[in-house]
């Protein structure tokens, strides 16, 4: 699976993380393999946390213009 940090969605990251945890728990890994998976797991965990901590999510609305549909920020007061 593509593990490029910025490309992976939360779901993919979480799924891969789970897979790594399972491998570490069940697999017959040697220390090298275990550490490699551990490192990857930590990176994925950090990425998931980062997504969860994002608070600047966009709220936008669609508007009809002469050039078609556009988006603009929406504030709800």
């Amino acid at each position: 699976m593509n593990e490029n940090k910025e490309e992976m969605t939360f779901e993919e990251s979480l799924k891969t993380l789970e897979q790594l945890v399972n491998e570490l728990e069940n697999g017959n890994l040697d220390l090298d393999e275990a550490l490699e998976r551990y490192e990857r797991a930590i990176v994925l965990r950090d990425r998931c946390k980062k997504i969860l901590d994002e608070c600047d999510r966009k709220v936008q609305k669609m508007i009809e213009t002469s050039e078609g549909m556009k988006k603009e920020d929406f504030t709800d007061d």
Partner: protein
Amino acid sequence: MAETVTVTQLNTRVRSVLSECRAVNDIWVAGEMSNLKKYPSGHYYFTLKDNSSEIRGVMFKQSRARIDFEPQDNMKVTAFGRVDLYVERGSYQFVVETMQRSGVGDLYLAYDALKRKLESEGLFDSSRKRSLPRYPRVIGVVTSPTGAVIHDIITTSRRRFPADILLYPAQVQGDGAAESIVRGIKALNREKVDVLIVGRGGGSIEDLWAFNEEMVARAIAASEVPVISAVGHETDFTIADLVADVRAPTPTGAAELALRDRTELIKHLDTDMIRLNRSLSNILKRMHYRFGILESKLTPRRAEQKILMHSIRLDELYSRMNSALSDRIETMRRRFIRIDSNMDIHVRTMIGNGKKDLLRYSERLESVNPMRVLDRGYTLMTDAEGKPLTSSRQISAGSEINIILKDGRAEAEVRKVEMRK
């Protein structure tokens, strides 16, 4: 000679004629309400009219309990009552005992007919219901930009898994509402949102009517994106609710269905980390055990090589563990001091133990290094192929042997062999 009466007598007689005339008593009259005035007394005064005529009407407070809706101007009604004359003014009016809203019955019939039709097409089948994406990146919302619906969705989403919200400001009641909702569903499908919420606040059956229109039902059914309906009413289902993949009772409920709880997800991640650390610690224990076995299998001949290899490997593992764990812990500690303080202690203790164990192992491995004994004046002898000599039986006069010293080696030839008894 014609009788002469007073105005009052005349009006009183007309009143009495009217009250005895069955044609204008206990009848239903259909018309539209206008000029409705609600008095503090609780009586309602209004005008009932059709295309060409009108009549004044009154509904007294005690009759109002018989109706289950609030009359409004322009409302089409069918009123039951009698004609009465107001003697003082000589005007007559319709005294309403009870009334029904016209057209509502028609709406229910239309609702039932459409429901049966779509049901027979299988549009409500549970097999058609799609599951919602677990972690949507963008939620599309088709609703009024001013109502409580969008407000509730935005407020709720702040506590949940973070997602962008894209609103299509739709008209949700009145003429053109259905068309507007359909345009919204299509537009947000083109925007490739991950999930759609279509809804409005509660209201009368007419207010909600757009959500019972066939074109809205078909647009929901045709949506590529899973749809959550949130038409604000707890009991009655609109057709939109029946076609939608999931029905939410309220806009807040819709946002909660679309987005998972943030705190739960963080807990989940923390559990994963505990599992990770526990299994890494188990693997370290197993490695130690394996070193133990290995050590017992070491033969003097290959010991040097083995030990060298293992000590390099231990160094390597040691530095990898340091960089993999310590750096990581440092970063994690800085970033998530509050959430992870317990876990950090756990990991650091584990690494501390790991380091101690590794040190002990390298000492133990070092102690079996055969080269160490050479320091004390012993030598190691091998045959010409480098096979260690441990018995005088392995050599005889004339054999070529190698002698390994602490800091070098020598080749020699055996002159004589004596075996010890």
